[in-house]
């Protein structure tokens, strides 16, 4: 049986199911309770699970993630909501010095099943702090799993997989796609869903591989649709750390070309990492250098310049063209 869900609602339903299945799952954050969060992703959970399991915290990101670590040390599975990408940073210390490292530091004795939910990316006419794509900072830190979703189906299952995972998971939510709708079969079992760490071929093709994730998957699919000259294979990366290179590389070996698109600035971004790895592993299959399409090397601009900053359909198509022009 399928239900039509938006990405936001799918995460909400996923959280609900995780909370029903496991009493150790807690939701915490600023205004996640009565208010249901700024994007209403936790809407209704407070009413149904109570204030003990859906915790309205003070305005204190460091305190939120720090206490979540403490809860996880004692067997709970906290899911922290950070309101916007840019508000994560006060909690940087807890995340990078503790959360990412305690499993190793304890010789594997401690497990930290903490989920950090962070709405990210631009395109909603917001500004700095409200539109950023900080995923590379997290992906650069071993010990954190970093995932993102591009459709309601993944949103529903991956949030549950993230919660069930014994490692800390940073769960990036594509805020400008929160309202995108699709059918989700919510009656299946969690184990039957595609694994959280696997990339997905979102659209098969032969001439060029286009890797995207989160909010850019839709743009990539539109680009593939719009490009009548080439058959574009679109890969939805889903897991940003670790990256499923098997899927990416086997696609590139078939197509011989790769474009990586993300909203985050190009320099030292995920695209750089993927380009380097693919060059190492698929050098003799490549017909052209890997092309990266992304945001510019500048802080997120004011809303009137946003459309020029964000990589759009044209910029992605231009990237595709460049791999063929080589």
């Amino acid at each position, binding site marked *: 049986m399928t239900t039509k869900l938006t990405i936001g609602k799918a995460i909400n339903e996923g959280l609900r199911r995780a909370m029903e299945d496991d009493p150790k799952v807690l939701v915490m954050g*600023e*205004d996640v309770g*009565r*208010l249901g969060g*700024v994007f209403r992703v936790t809407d209704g959970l407070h009413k149904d699970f109570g204030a003990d399991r859906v915790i*309205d*915290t*003070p*305005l*204190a*990101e*460091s*305190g939120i993630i720090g206490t979540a670590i403490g809860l996880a040390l004692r067997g709970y599975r906290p899911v922290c909501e950070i309101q916007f990408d*840019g*508000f994560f*940073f*006060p909690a940087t210390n807890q995340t990078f010095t503790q959360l990412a490292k305690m499993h190793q530091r304890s010789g594997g004795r401690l497990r930290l099943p903490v989920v950090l939910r962070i709405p990210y990316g631009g395109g909603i*006419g*917001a*500004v*700095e*702090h*409200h539109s950023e794509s900080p995923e590379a900072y997290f992906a650069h830190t071993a010990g954190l799993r970093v995932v993102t979703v591009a459709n309601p189906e993944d949103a529903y299952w991956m949030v549950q997989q993230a919660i069930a995972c014994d490692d800390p998971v940073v769960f990036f939510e594509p805020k400008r796609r929160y309202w995108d709708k699709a059918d989700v079969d919510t009656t299946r079992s969690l184990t039957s869903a595609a694994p959280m760490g696997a990339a997905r071929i979102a659209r098969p093709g032969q001439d060029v591989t286009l890797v995207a994730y989160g909010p850019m998957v839709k743009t990539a699919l539109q680009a593939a649709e719009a490009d009548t000259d080439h058959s574009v294979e679109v890969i939805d990366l889903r897991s940003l750390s670790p990256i499923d290179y098997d899927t990416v590389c086997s696609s590139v070996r078939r197509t011989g070309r790769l474009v990586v698109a993300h909203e985050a600035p*190009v*320099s030292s971004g995920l695209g750089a990492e993927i380009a380097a790895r693919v060059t190492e592993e698929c050098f003799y299959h490549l017909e052209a*250098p890997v*092309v*990266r*399409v*992304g*945001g*510019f*090397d*500048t*802080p997120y*601009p*004011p*809303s*009137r*310049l946003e459309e*020029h*900053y964000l*990589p759009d359909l044209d*910029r992605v198509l*231009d*990237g595709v063209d*460049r791999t063929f*022009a*080589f």
Partner: protein
Amino acid sequence: MADTAKPKGGGTARSTGGRRRSRKDTAPNIADEQPKTLLDYYRQMLLIRRFEERTAQAYTQARIGGYCHLNLGEEATIVGLMTALQERDYLFTNYREHGYAIGKGISPRSVMAELYGRSTGVSKGWGGSMHMFDTQTRMLGGYGIVGGQLPLATGAALAISYRGGDEVVMCQMGDGTTNIGAFHESLNIAALWNLPIVFVVVNNFTGMGTTVEKSSAEPELYKRGSSYRMEGVRVDGQDVLAVRDAATDLVERARAEQKPFLLEAISYRMKGHSVVDPAKYRTAEQAEEAKANDPVLAFERQLEEAGILTEEIKQEIADSVRDEVTDAADFAENSPHPEVSTLFDYTYATPVPNESRRMPADPVFAE
């Protein structure tokens, strides 16, 4: 403009300590004040009120982008606080700062143009609603990150102290901000190093939808400085004279005694957290209470009863405020947007290599 936005001269210039009142027993009395001064405060409050109403309207019409937090209900606090500052004093605020920017002496035109994201705005359209900077009037920012302004304001106070200057820093924040680590680190440093700074908590009872009681273990926020042995004062933020007196007292003591203070102003947020927030979490009584505590109306009534604000003067002020706001909005409307070609102009202050790499859409492997 400056003469209307920022009061100058006798009526408000105050000597240190001389007019310190015991805030509990003797509320400031308008009979002790110059009518001209009172009317000036009233005009400034009304200006902020009408400016913010216009801002809300422009936002709803999509003339203003980003997030937009209004000072509606906070007018008495703002005017009282800004009156207490000298021109040479510095101001840091949170993102709810349009009224403060005007109060510190930035023209409504530059503030409105900034809201509209135009290049004639006080931050050239790059800061928007939350990030207004003006070194000339010593407004050192609106800050969108909660608590972001606190350590920075403390550093500005350290610079004054280091140099032996006699300026004071005022650092405004909301009640919710007192729960973030930066608040405690900053208060500790300011107290430890005897810095001339007045931290001002505008307590409107909520941070977004979370109440002070639900988020602060010491809900009497002016006491939160006590673990740093910092004197704290609470004042009725709806009373412009009370705010002015309390703030002047602390600013001048910070200047003279070289130490920090904490001032809490009890205020009301008349609308949602930002323009797009319908504030459904508020009960009807709470919304009523905010409305009943409208500081502009209250002051208006007070002045009318005292015979200071006649029908004629009231109309005059209303007209001139309306004209000023209309002028600001027209100015903003007719100003240019930042050029796309300026997208990289402010990333670095000094030249950087690899210019072309900042344009990933440009051919990177063209010959």
